[in-house]
């Protein structure tokens, strides 16, 4: 017998396999449906080429086979976790993804943490000041930020903080001739991440703010908060333990759902800030019609979202004990 948490994780990972396969088939079908292929994209980049060059390239890249033949080769490469070679980066797809993954994980993790904690904090304040000026300003402000496209916000931040004020580096993931020692390097990366994380985080904050505000307005009016008051607890303790904690559940649920959306958002942000991550790799792959690379990036994203959701479900148990019992047993998530 496995411990329940471990068997829950294994079961959820098994559930993920068909999801990954469906996504893989979807990617293939969509790219097949679109006119042109990698050779067209490559030749367009070169500025043209004759038919024999195109035929040679198609033979080289395995694009001369029938649709079924290519589909089988494609599926085989996925099942064997090989994922093939990318024309666009000129190397193994797996290697390209693995070298780019840390930057994206760091950007996304920091953005989610920033956006959720700021949203929870401001949403809580808005709930406590419900109906007042503060509430109105916060709610409206978050909504405006949510409506602004991420790339535009990113460009504005670059203009203000890089071009005018010169406080932050404008692009990249680290300085080329930056410090080599671990602490200096971490600080350098953090310095580079401030603007992209702010952009991505502010765009997605509205959701957390509104969720937290709504949930906390509810817990604030609950009998258990009145009972906590009747026990003479200090107000700060009541807000922290009896209002905010029970209100966190919808926020955590949204963290899992948002992971996928944020991955999409990071494609844009990584491109704006020239961060060598999964997002900018996806952008490169799509513009080059590089099927193995597109498939690799999309599947990496799929796996990432599945893992984040498992983590979210596991964290429910810590936040809402009512979930532990059924959720872990049945694996419904």
């Amino acid at each position: 017998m496995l411990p329940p948490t471990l068997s829950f994780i294994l079961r959820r990972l098994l559930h993920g396999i068909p999801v990954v396969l469906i996504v893989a088939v979807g990617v293939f079908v969509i790219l097949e449906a679109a006119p042109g292929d990698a050779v067209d994209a490559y030749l367009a980049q070169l500025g043209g080429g004759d038919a024999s060059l195109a035929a040679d390239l198609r033979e080289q890249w395995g694009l001369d086979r029938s649709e079924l033949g290519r589909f089988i080769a494609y599926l085989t490469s996925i099942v064997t976790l090989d994922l093939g070679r990318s024309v666009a980066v000129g190397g193994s797809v797996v290697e390209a993804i693995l070298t780019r993954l840390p930057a994206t994980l760091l950007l996304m993790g920091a953005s989610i943490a920033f956006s959720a904690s700021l949203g929870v904090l401001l949403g809580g304040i808005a709930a406590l000041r419900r109906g007042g000026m503060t509430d109105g300003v916060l709610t409206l402000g978050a909504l405006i930020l949510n409506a602004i496209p991420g790339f535009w916000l990113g460009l504005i931040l670059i203009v203000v903080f890089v071009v005018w004020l010169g406080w932050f580096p404008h692009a990249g993931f680290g300085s080329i001739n930056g410090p080599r020692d671990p602490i200096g390097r971490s600080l350098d990366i953090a310095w580079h991440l401030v603007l992209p994380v702010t952009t991505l985080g502010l765009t997605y904050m509205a959701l957390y703010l509104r969720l937290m505000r709504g949930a906390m307005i509810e817990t604030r009016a609950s009998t258990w908060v009145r009972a906590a008051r009747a026990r003479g607890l200090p107000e700060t303790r009541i807000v922290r333990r009896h209002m905010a904690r029970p209100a966190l559940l919808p926020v955590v649920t949204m963290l899992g759902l948002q992971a996928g959306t944020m991955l999409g958002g990071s494609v844009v942000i990584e491109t704006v800030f020239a961060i060598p991550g999964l997002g900018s790799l996806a952008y490169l792959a799509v513009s080059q019609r590089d099927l193995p690379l597109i498939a690799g990036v999309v599947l990496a994203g799929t796996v990432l979202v599945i893992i984040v959701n498992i983590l979210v479900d596991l964290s429910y148990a810590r936040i809402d004990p009512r979930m532990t019992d059924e959720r872990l047993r049945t694996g419904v998530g």
Partner: protein
Amino acid sequence: MAAGGSATAGGPTTSARPDHAALEVRDLRVRYRSIDDHGPDVLAVDGIDLTMDRGEVLSLVGESGSGKSATLLALAGLLPANASVSGSVRLQGHDILALPERARARVRGRGIGMVFQDPGGSLTPVLTVGSLIDEVLLVHRGLQGAAARAETEALLARCGVGDPARRAQAYPHQLSGGLRQRVAIAAALAAGPEVILADEPTTALDATVQAQVLDLLVGLVADEGVALVLVTHDLAVAAAVADRIAVMYAGRIAEERPAGELMERPGHPYTVALRAAALPFRPRDRDGEGIQERLPELRGRMAAAGGTGCSFAPRCPLATDHCRLVAPPLEPFEGGLVACWRAGELAEWPGVESPEVEPEVPLAAIEPQAVGWPGQGA
């Protein structure tokens, strides 16, 4: 139960003065402003006086809107922001109504504990029940870690929670309604209050569990010497546990007398009506048949508080023109107080003599299967 110890200078509840009543309420008024500032104000409590000693059970009885819950919230200092209170509430001789909010919060829990109607709702769902009580011990008595947990388990055991060490680790949803209410009582007791306010503490519970929880509350009054204010709409419950009963109507006290005498010979027509409605309380007869006969009905609605004349007059079969014009004062009547011009004539009113009533049935004597409050007529 450990009221002193962590005495804070100037705390109103720390110096127990035996020469003062545990709780003394004078001319308490609660007024609700309408939320949108357009409607008229509502006078929920219209000048009531109450005095309670330690070890005493006083029951506030009345129908919805009689002001009993507003009274309780005013005593606890938990009224919403749109309510204003006047009068005085003295706890061990100290006026707590005049205290600023910070000092008032210290009184809550330490001086006055409260038990709510919905035992599930009054426990924070994401915290273990043990940590809820630990928290009260930390805030009011400065207990931490193992010392706090030991005291928590002792409190749970005192409140009839079996296997307290394991139950302390449980979350509220893992416990039954009766256990939750026991936990809520333990939390209310944790800071060692002199007065416990219980707002319909058994209404949400099964009949069997009701008897057990009432038993626990009455036992705490006897053992710990706290004063218990029990709010209920059920006169039968009040009669079974209270030393004194105060019947409230439209924000005022209609009658306040020792429980036995009040049940035996009510002094107010409203008490008579309440008693008639309380008699056949039983979920099922022994032969499995439900209640067939209709309960006696009190027609009409409660008048708003603060009008002229007796507020019960529109529904009262004995009302005269005098009743409708001049409100009767609370005057001494057979061991207590009654506010009725015709209190002395009530004995002749049909239905007042109710031989089935057996007040003060000891709770322990009630068989669990046959819980039916006095008047069950086995």
